[in-house]
């Protein structure tokens, strides 16, 4: 049932995997130091803040992690801009009408109304949704966080009401991100029957050509066209990942 053996193609570079790992750590640190601030009147909020040594420490950790995340976000945008034209391992996250059609087609397929699954590219609509949710969420969190961090500066140019509005947006967006991660990312990367207990691609950096053929057929076709999908038949122990 699993098509994970055999020749591999690179899916995430080492730097991308590192980026994901840092994001994972920072997201958890930010949630752990942010949620007790949002729910500071709850017993668990108080206890978490007490464990971390008081609100001054919690804010310091939260803001340090936030600055690191913003720096990484800027790095990400620069890398995407610099590598957008190369033939393989390029960005491939551009949204198009096709993703909406894929979503609809996939709903029909999963419901059993259609026998054909949409032919996904390198990233399917779920992965693109997650990617853009993280990116857009980071922008909202960074902007609203900075407004709250530097209200004196903000109100030199903007009406003061943006400060309490940023506070509401920061809390709302945080909950949204948390729900998206717990429901959508955990399901698709951990609990979905074909990947349970964990999809290793983000940590090994590769997926098998065979898996690409099943889950990302449009990408597979492109790999074939570029002559990167060939190699020994699946299961061969001498299979080597093609250069990219």
């Amino acid at each position, binding site marked *: 049932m699993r098509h994970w053996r055999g020749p591999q193609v690179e899916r995430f570079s080492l730097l991308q995997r590192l980026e994901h790992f840092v994001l994972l750590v920072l997201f958890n640190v930010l949630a752990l130091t942010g949620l007790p*601030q949002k729910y*500071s*009147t709850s017993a668990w909020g*108080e206890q978490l*803040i*007490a464990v971390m*040594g*008081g*609100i*001054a420490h919690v804010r310091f950790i939260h803001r340090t992690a936030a600055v690191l995340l913003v720096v990484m976000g800027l790095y990400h945008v620069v890398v995407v801009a610099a590598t957008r034209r190369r033939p393989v391992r390029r960005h491939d996250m551009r949204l198009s009408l096709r993703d909406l059609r894929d979503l609809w087609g996939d*709903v029909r*397929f*999963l*419901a*059993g109304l259609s*026998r054909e699954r949409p032919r996904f590219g390198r990233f399917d609509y*779920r992965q693109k949704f997650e990617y853009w949710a993280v990116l857009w969420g980071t922008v909202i969190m960074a902007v609203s966080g900075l407004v*709250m961090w530097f*209200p*004196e*500066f*903000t*109100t*030199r*140019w*903007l*009406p*003061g*009401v*943006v*400060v*309490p*509005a940023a*506070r*509401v*947006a920061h*809390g*709302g*967006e945080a*909950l*949204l991100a948390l*729900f*998206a991660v717990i*429901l*959508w990312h955990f*399901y698709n990367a951990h609990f*979905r*029957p*074909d990947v349970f207990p964990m999809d290793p691609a983000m940590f090994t950096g590769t997926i098998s050509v065979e898996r690409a053929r099943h889950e990302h057929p449009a990408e597979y076709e492109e790999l074939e066209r570029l002559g990167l999908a060939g190699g020994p038949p699946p299961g061969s122990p001498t299979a080597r990942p093609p250069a990219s």
Partner: protein
Amino acid sequence: MRRARLAVLAVVAVTWLWAGRAAVAQENAACLGCHEAAGTEVTFPDGSRLGATVHPQRFGASVHAPLPCVTCHAGQTDYPHPPRAARSARAYQVAAQQICATCHAEAAAAYAAGSHGRAVARGATDVPLCTSCHTAHEVVPPATAAFRNNAPELCGNCHADEALMARYGVRVVYQAYTEEFHGVTTRLYRIVTPMSPSPAAVCSDCHTAHRVLPPTDPASTVSPANVLATCRTCHATAGRFFATAWTEHRAPSLRFATLVYLVQVFYWILIPATVAVLVALTALDLWYWVWVRRRRRRA
């Protein structure tokens, strides 16, 4: 020679002060002999009563510990004590404010000019007096963490009380404060790090401690004309629109702080909607794995 004389003088002064303190402690011990007993009370002619217990340790920790009891309770040297002029406990406490004023003239004048003092002068009996906030015998400096972190609760004793505030046409503000940035910070300092004074604004930082006036009074530190200057006492670099970041201890609504309200409504809709869509897609995916896929394999 000169230095030696100074040294002698210093030793004498210290000894004198020390002896003075010791004498005061001895004198006060005579009073505490009766007044440290729990449940000591004074009954006034109208039947109202006032606790007269002085906790020796807490009095000893107060700023007034070096003072002899008779500094404030003049003439109370003999037992039985001479009769008091006050007809009620409240009248006694109001009269006692004159005693505080003999040393704390500046605070007393500010208090008399503020809303609280003016109401007392009009005869209001449910308005704070010196001792309502500072206590009679456990007075601590207001800059200490113990007093400062607790200031919102102190004011909240009255300013969280709907019925009491309605009598004076004042909005109930305590709850809203505890949910604001200042209030959240101060509350967490009080609960989690009670030994450190909160760096965030407590009531008295903006409203002053004694000359508290409604924002409609042009002389108030929180009147529209003065509020930005008041913000800048802490937020020195605050921009010109800074004061409008203030939501006046009020909940946002369609009419007030509209943008805040709209952002709130936006997330009230977006979060449940997103969760519903994601749950539906997840359920559909599971449906595929447990039902559709199996049926197709059998077919």
